[in-house]
């Protein structure tokens, strides 16, 4: 493509670089990162809602400053979502759900600083890796990502679902039961192809189904609140005497060594999945988590505060940001809600992201790419500076922290769609979470089914509509066949692994 030739060091690249290092742009990036971390941490405040709050500001600001601000918020929000996942076990964003699996246990074991440090560093490396993808090979990758069709996406999502096996090791029946409950819940609302109402009982609120984040808040936070009621000061059985390390901000060298592989997996998986419109952060985070567990010798420590289990999803969800910018910048196709808003914010200033932008305003296009680079740098600096404060948050007396979390759950589930109905849905999922805890059914398979179920059905049915019912499309498309092959390997691997370690439990 023509664009490929343009990616060489030329005047536009330099111009873009200079635009991104203007003091005002840098300041805007830094403010954006800070706000992003704050927004990301508050349950119910998604990155999209944070960006929307700032959007009116960008009506009056210079476009290069606006985009710096918004990109800072995007990158900061991804990390902020993980902070609340690690500290409070409430993922601030869907992409941070996988981080809670090991981040929260490590935090409860008295090492919140270590968990946060690993998350910050992994995010930074993941973000930088996706910046390189964006800067060096964006146009070619964009075309590759575009050639994904419905059958390929179905198989990819199916592959994502096989991650469930890893969380069902204790009991296959209970794990699969949890997944099936999740898939059943996904069928609530209009079906993705015909729009037929399913299980809505005539209520318009249910037409759009169950919001993933609403369910997430209920499933994670409510059982934990109830449990802490019963146990007074203790929040989790595994709580040990707190010995928080305030001093060490960056991970120790032994941790860095353990992070190498997971961060590489996360960076690659995140960047690639970020480029596919609609695939998104949660799949990338869970898949990286799963692959890391499978390639690590000591997979038993996962779910109990493994450094690797934090590093992989964190690198992945921040790499998704750079990946999502690839189709947005090169084709004007948004991969997630945030990039859709970014496109709108640029349009207001007469700048339409897409192939033309690289031809007509290449300096600006590169300015955006470099702003993304600086957003990652500032994210690291601001997050490290904020760590001391954040770690203290965990030391807040339970009598203050728990009611605060309860309020955040209610406000958060309301704020997502400005709907009181969603608050009831959140409480329903809280009860479901309690019941599952009581029956010792793992929650993660349900969670995965909720994230992936709708895409699974949608892509399956579009693929079959397109092929007029011919199932062979899933095997004749090379991408699809490849993903299905890996899915089979993934399942076999999990079964073998489970037989080996059946005696030990994997808590989720």
């Amino acid at each position, binding site marked *: 493509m023509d664009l490929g030739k343009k990616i060489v060091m030329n005047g536009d690249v330099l111009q873009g670089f200079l635009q991104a290092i203007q003091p005002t742009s840098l300041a805007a990036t830094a403010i954006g990162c800070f706000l992003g971390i704050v927004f990301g941490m508050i349950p119910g405040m998604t990155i999209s809602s944070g960006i929307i709050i700032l959007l009116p500001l960008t009506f009056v600001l210079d476009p290069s400053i606006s985009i710096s601000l918004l990109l800072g918020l995007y990158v900061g929000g991804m990390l902020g979502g993980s902070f609340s996942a690690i500290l409070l076990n409430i993922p601030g964003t869907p992409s941070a759900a996988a981080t809670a699996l090991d981040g929260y246990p490590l935090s409860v074991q008295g090492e919140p600083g270590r968990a946060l440090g690993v998350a910050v560093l992994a995010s930074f490396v993941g973000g930088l890796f996706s910046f390189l993808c964006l800067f060096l090979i964006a146009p070619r990758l964009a075309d590759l990502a*575009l050639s994904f*069709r419905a059958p390929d996406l179905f198989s990819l999502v199916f592959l994502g679902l096989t991650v469930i096996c890893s969380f069902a090791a204790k009991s296959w029946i209970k794990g699969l039961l949890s997944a099936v409950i999740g898939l059943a819940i996904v069928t609530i609302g209009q079906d993705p192809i015909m729009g037929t109402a399913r299980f809505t009982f005539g209520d*318009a609120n249910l*037409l759009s189904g169950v919001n993933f984040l609403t369910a997430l808040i209920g499933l994670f936070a409510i059982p934990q609140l109830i449990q802490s009621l019963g146990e007074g000061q203790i929040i989790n059985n595994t709580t040990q005497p707190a010995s928080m390390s305030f001093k060490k901000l960056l991970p120790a060298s032994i941790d860095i060594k353990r992070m190498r592989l997971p961060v590489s997996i996360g960076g690659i998986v995140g960047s690639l999945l970020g480029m596919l419109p*609609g695939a998104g952060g949660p799949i990338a985070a869970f898949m990286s988590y799963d692959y890391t567990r499978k390639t690590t010798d000591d997979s038993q420590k996962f779910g109990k505060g493994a450094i690797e289990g934090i590093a992989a999803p964190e690198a992945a969800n921040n790499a998704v940001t750079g990946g999502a910018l690839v189709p947005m910048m090169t084709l004007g*196709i948004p991969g997630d*809600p945030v990039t859709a808003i970014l496109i709108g914010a640029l*349009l207001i200033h007469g700048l339409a*992201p897409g*192939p033309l932008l690289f031809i007509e305003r290449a300096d600006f296009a590169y300015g955006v790419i470099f702003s993304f680079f600086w957003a990652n740098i500032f994210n690291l600096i601001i997050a490290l500076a904020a760590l001391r404060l954040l770690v203290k948050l965990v030391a807040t007396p339970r009598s203050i922290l728990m009611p605060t979390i309860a309020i955040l759950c209610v406000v958060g589930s309301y704020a997502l769609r400005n709907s009181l109905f969603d608050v009831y849905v959140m409480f329903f999922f809280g009860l479901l979470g309690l019941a599952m805890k009581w029956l010792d059914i793992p929650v993660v398979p349900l969670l995965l089914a909720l994230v992936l179920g709708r895409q699974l059905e949608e892509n399956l049915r579009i693929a079959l509509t397109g092929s007029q019912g011919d199932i062979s499309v899933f095997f004749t498309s090379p991408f699809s066949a490849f993903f299905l092959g890996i899915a089979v390997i993934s399942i076999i691997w999990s079964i073998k692994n489970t037989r080996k370690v059946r005696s030990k439990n994997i808590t989720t």
Partner: protein
Amino acid sequence: MQLLVVKTLRSSKHLIFLSLFLFGSAGFSQYPDRAIEFVIPFDAGGGADIEGRLLADQMSNVLGVPVVPVNKPGAGGAVAYTYLMNSAPDGYVVIWNSTSILTITNLGYVPFTYDALDHVGRVEFQPLVLAVSANSPWNNLESFAADCTSGNQVLKLANSGTGSGTHLGALSITSAIGCETLHLPIGTRRRNASVLSGEADGMIAPLTGVINLAKANRLRVLATLSAERNSVIPEVPTATELGISSLFDLFRGLSVPKGTPKEAIDRLAEAMIGAAKSEGFMRFSEEAGFTVEPMEPADFEMLLAAEDNKIKMILENTEFIMPNNN
């Protein structure tokens, strides 16, 4: 420049206040005296959202009270329209409507019709277009129509969702051509991608959704479904002028709960028209590719009635299977 605009708007605001003071009817002359809720029936970030936010921003300049955008997404607008149905008709809640108010009511997603709300006016419209990949063999609508009717292959047309305006537009043009296609409800996020990859042979899409890829020569716009050629793409013919009579424009405007006082509706219409013609909104429209052409309440009612009929006709003629039978 920015300052100047603000200043002009401020002074016009005072002027309007003054005129309201002089001519306003007693009892409602204080309207509006508090913030107005501006419901956007779609997710944050889409075209509807950005346009709506910009309009709300400009409307608050005219009205002198905050006009606060609130997203109530879900079920193609059904959630938001239902919310409005149940809101107090006091002039402090408006909805940024679209063609969806006619589609979801006709498809039975909600148990009421479009006239269960009162309507303030239209702000803008944009044509639906038939677009194909620039690598496709079709250079004009005639060749596409010929391949579609030949029966050698079943062409696939992508749309934004079953029963959406783009789907109805696709049904309208294919029945006008007289051919059968597969309709793939791929959704807004992947619709353009599916045409570029060849997964779909073409698509019916709003002009704003394809304009930039068309300018970059990645997509080819074969025809618009408008009555007249569009000033954004004057070189593209209308389907009608090629002898294929298929008309389908998408509109956006404002509605309020049934029973909202006429004074409030008129005041809102006035503010809406002022905001639509503001420099900020006009500049955005040029870039995005929609046409700002405000309509007063009475004209908009007529347009809605006509469009509602047209949609009913399309659904009947194509024997569209109603997803909901309630």
